[in-house]
């Protein structure tokens, strides 16, 4: 069954059950259906892309589905990101209309360039219920923008078909999810882990608990987990790092599915966490935005998984339903040796049709390969991996300069691009390092820079979202170089660790 059919069915079957708990208030599926239909009446376009200000309230979720039910795709826009970056996204996606539940910071800048802003916070509920829009399944459901090394964010379109494939794979694996479950949704809508927390829940009549945007996320998430019967949640390892000092006092008996993802997952902390969630099965979910949320999964077994870690990291497991994965070398030939390392590539119905307006990037990233007797369109994840005897894949590093910060993908090159532009210094290096609680942060090194570092920081803040802003900036007389003449990033990462 296609995605929106499942939503309609849930709204009918579970009309008096709660669909959302947001802002300390419950909303039923009946209210949800009426709110979606009210938004549909406000949208006069079809087969277009519509901006969605990523608030955290009920009206925003109704707007998101209102966009889908009106036959359009949504592009989440974080109101706290610099207006200039949001304008880049809006121009790239050709957005003419923006929905927001309330007035937002960069609103004036967006209205000035001729955008139509529709406020959905106070729409009276419609008397009708949403109906299927009758658009092609190949049309875009959403576009998420990720960091691009050239300084311009990359748009990743995900079609309705991609999403339906994800939902099929999700329920093939988590078949027991039903209306008695509750999901914790703590992610900004610009991060695709959010999709996993509202879509499957709303397909099955479950309740979605959201974390408000301006709360301290790990604390509010824990508060929801401890005060409500939440049964399904994907946490980021960094969230666990914050809670770790209190593990001894934490007992979450209702949690049945405790997933991790967005960053490398270390088995030490998972082992400790397993005592806090005595009734939960624990999973590591893996997948980039391009492949619709996640497509590989590993169930962590406290009795035997300890032996399976690589550099302390939990395996990323096996591909889910309908996805094929392989390992390739630099020339894109399959790597076949037992336990050999290669770049992880994937093919299947969850794969994006390609980046928005970036033909060059698409040629680099997507390729056709004959594999196991069939020809398929494959995506290069940029992640290095190997496969063990039981068929589980292990992540073992990046083939490029990308890092994960709070689950967001960051091209260090994008930060360097802006730093170079402002300082006019050719030798700059943004490096990732682990801070004292084990979370990844960025430090920016500049070669012989005599200007004010605070001004560099201010400039970056005007250009980049907050998760890409370096935690510190230093000037060195010379950046260290390794024997092949390249900037020695490992040495800089060690230096950054000592500086913080």
């Amino acid at each position: 069954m296609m995605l929106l059919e499942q939503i309609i069915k849930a709204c009918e079957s579970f009309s008096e059950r709660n669909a959302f708990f947001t802002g300390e208030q419950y909303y039923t599926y009946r209210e949800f259906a009426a709110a979606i239909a009210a938004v549909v009446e406000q949208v006069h376009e079809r087969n277009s892309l519509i901006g969605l200000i990523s608030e955290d309230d009920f009206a925003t979720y109704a707007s998101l589905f209102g966009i889908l039910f009106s036959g359009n795709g949504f592009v989440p826009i974080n109101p706290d990101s610099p207006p200039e970056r949001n304008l880049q996204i809006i121009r790239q996606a050709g957005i003419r209309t923006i929905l927001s539940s309330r007035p937002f910071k960069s609103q004036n800048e967006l209205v000035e360039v001729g955008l139509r802003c529709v406020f959905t916070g106070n729409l009276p509920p419609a008397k009708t219920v949403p109906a299927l829009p009758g658009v092609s399944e190949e049309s875009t459901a959403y576009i998420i923008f990720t960091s691009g090394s050239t300084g311009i964010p990359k748009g990743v379109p995900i079609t309705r078909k991609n999403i339906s494939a994800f939902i099929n794979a999700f329920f093939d694996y988590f078949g027991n999810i039903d209306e008695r479950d509750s999901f914790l949704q703590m992610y900004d809508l610009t991060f695709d882990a959010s999709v996993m927390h509202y879509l499957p829940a709303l397909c099955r009549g479950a309740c979605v608990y959201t974390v408000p945007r301006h709360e301290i996320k790990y604390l509010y998430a824990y508060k929801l987990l401890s005060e409500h019967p939440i049964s399904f949640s994907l946490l980021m390892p960094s969230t666990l790092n914050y809670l770790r000092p209190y593990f001894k006092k934490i007992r979450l008996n209702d949690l049945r599915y405790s997933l991790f993802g967005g960053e490398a997952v270390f088995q030490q902390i998972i082992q400790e966490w397993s005592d806090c969630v005595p009734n939960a099965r624990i999973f590591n979910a893996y997948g980039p935005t391009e492949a619709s949320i996640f497509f590989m999964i590993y169930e962590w077994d406290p009795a035997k998984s300890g032996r399976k870690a690589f550099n302390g990291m939990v395996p990323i497991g096996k591909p889910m339903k309908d996805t094929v994965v392989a390992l390739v070398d630099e020339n894109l030939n399959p790597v076949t040796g037992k336990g050999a390392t290669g770049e992880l590539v994937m093919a299947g119905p969850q794969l994006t049709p390609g980046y928005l307006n970036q033909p060059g990037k698409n040629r680099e990233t997507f390729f056709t390969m004959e594999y196991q007797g069939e020809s398929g369109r494959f995506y290069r994840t940029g992640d290095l991996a190997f496969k063990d005897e039981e068929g589980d894949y292990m992540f073992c590093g990046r083939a490029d300069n990308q890092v994960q910060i709070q689950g967001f993908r960051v091209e260090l090159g994008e930060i360097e691009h802006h730093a170079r532009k402002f300082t006019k210094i050719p030798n700059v290096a943004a490096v990732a390092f682990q801070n004292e609680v084990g979370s990844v942060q960025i430090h920016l090194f500049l070669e012989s820079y005599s200007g004010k570092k605070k001004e560099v920081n201010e400039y970056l803040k005007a250009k980049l979202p907050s998760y890409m802003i370096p935690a510190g900036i230093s000037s060195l007389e010379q950046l260290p170089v390794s024997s092949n003449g390249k900037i020695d990033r490992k040495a800089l990462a060690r230096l950054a660790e000592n500086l913080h």
Partner: protein
Amino acid sequence: MELAEIFKQVNEIFKDIFEEDDIVIEAETSAKDIDGWDSLTHMQMITAVEKHFKIKFELNEILNFKNAGDMCRLIQTKLG
């Protein structure tokens, strides 16, 4: 210790964590008032306060902080 003195000392910790010399905290100051007050800086701030005053907070105490005033009053109680 006087509450005003606790505020003064906590204010210094805030300046250090948020790298902003102009920060002035009041009883009602909360995460949405200060740029950069997120999960990481919150955790760093809690750790710095615990170290400075030689106290420990429980998780449910931290959960109930609505603003800087709540935290300063609890510091005062803990200092006895």
